[in-house]
């Protein structure tokens, strides 16, 4: 289990970061533990000096040889990239920006691997939220899902994962088609009251897969929990990690599970 707390990017605590709390955890799937493997998911969040909050989750593909390095490089790489560039406003602008961000991520894969670099060894997904005072941007490559809570309890799925004809087929950041297949959603940020990013291991437990609608009895208690005032963020991250590694979750999914919650 790994727990994550918010990382202050560039060392300061700006206004938005004070308002938003990030509670995140990740638990290794039982099929990975059984094979002696580790957790291949990664998550990271950061607040920029101008008040932008960035949330990222990545899921290394089971078929990728360096899946856990890939997901770590992906979340660090994209946050570093976004932190050092001016952010676009339009969907087309974000698509171009994302394409450049993915290029830097792939360069970091190649640099880490050295001469024997093979794309498929670093296949991973990427889920990303960029929250500014005015707008919310959700970007996704591959499976998993991003859900927002609006107002007191309305839940909206922000991205629709690419699913091929068959179960288990998806797109990874290493695919040349990734920027085109990326899901990009831009919304006004004003009434957003909660954000959840999760790797695909949790999808069948959090969503109605036939209708693609978020399952309210899953999300509502989680957002409530993340916003509890009398617990520290570290404590909440630990509790969330225990929840993700619990028997009742492992009975339903053998995959790695990562959940990142953000609440004002």
């Amino acid at each position, binding site marked *: 289990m790994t727990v994550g707390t918010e990382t202050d990017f560039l060392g300061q605590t700006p206004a938005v970061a004070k308002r938003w709390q990030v509670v995140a955890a990740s638990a290794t799937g039982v*099929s990975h533990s059984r094979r002696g493997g580790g957790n291949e998911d990664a998550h990271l969040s950061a607040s920029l000096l101008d008040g932008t909050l960035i949330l990222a989750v990545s899921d290394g*593909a*089971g*078929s990728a040889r360096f899946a856990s390095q890939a997901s770590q490089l992906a979340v660090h790489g994209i946050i570093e990239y976004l932190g050092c560039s001016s952010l676009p406003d339009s969907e087309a602008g974000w698509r171009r920006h994302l394409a450049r961000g993915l290029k830097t991520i792939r360069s970091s894969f190649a640099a880490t691997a050295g001469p024997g670099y093979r794309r*498929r060894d670093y*296949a991973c997904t990427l889920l990303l939220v960029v929250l500014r005072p005015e707008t919310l941007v959700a970007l996704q490559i591959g*499976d998993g899902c991003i859900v927002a809570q609006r107002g007191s309890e309305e839940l909206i799925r922000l991205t629709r994962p690419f*699913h091929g*004809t*068959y*179960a*288990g*087929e*998806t*797109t*990874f950041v*290493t*695919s040349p088609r990734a920027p085109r297949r990326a899901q990009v959603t831009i919304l006004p940020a004003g009434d957003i009251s909660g954000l959840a990013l999760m790797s*695909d291991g949790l999808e*069948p*437990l*959090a*969503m*109605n*897969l*036939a209708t693609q609608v978020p*399952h309210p*009895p*899953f999300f509502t*208690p*989680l957002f*409530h*929990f993340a916003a*509890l005032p009398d617990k520290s963020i570290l404590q909440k991250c630990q*509790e*969330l990690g*225990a*929840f993700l590694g619990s028997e*009742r*979750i492992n*009975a*339903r999914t*053998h*995959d790695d599970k990562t959940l990142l919650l953000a609440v004002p």
Partner: protein
Amino acid sequence: MSELDLVQLAENPDPRAPCLLLLDTSGSMMGKPIRALNEGLQAFQQDVMNDDLAKRRVEVAIVSFGKGGVRTMQDFTTVENWTPAELRAGGSTPLGEALRRGLRLLRERKDLYKQAGLQYYRPWMFLITDGEPTDDWEEAAKQAKREDSHRGLLFFAVGAEGANMDRLAQIVPKDRPPLKLKGLQFAELFLWLSQSQQSVSHSRVGDQLALPPIGWADVST
């Protein structure tokens, strides 16, 4: 008690991994071979049952060709609901008709998945024979290869002792040549199939699924 105990999990049906077995039960399988084949099916069922996810996801159907002509011995059912019926040997080898029956069963199953909104993995069609077709097989083989090339299914063939391997090579896709079973290692073959189906039913693939190593076939073919 933690607030997280209040979180309720959504219920979704498991995605299905269909696996269709086309099994030769012609006269030449009589005696030891048919016994080994039946034991292999038992081993397959027991091994998948050890995987609590795969037993709900892997769906088996069996079409036999030989004794009694072409028979749907088992229509698609999840492994946890499957009791392998004993196969008996006798008669000729109507492989072509078995292929047509198999393709039809697969088509019907896929339609059912779509109607029910179930996700499913690419179906496997697994042919085992110890002879060569005694009926028209060309059209059916062409159809099977066409569906395979359009990613509609994955077609594998295994030749047991006595199989016409050259003919079998004409039946399956060129890029997936038939494998020659070592002796009567049906149990090993079906354990491999079980492990493969367990991988499939847990898989998420952007490119290729790594299958377990094949120990039950002669490498010379």
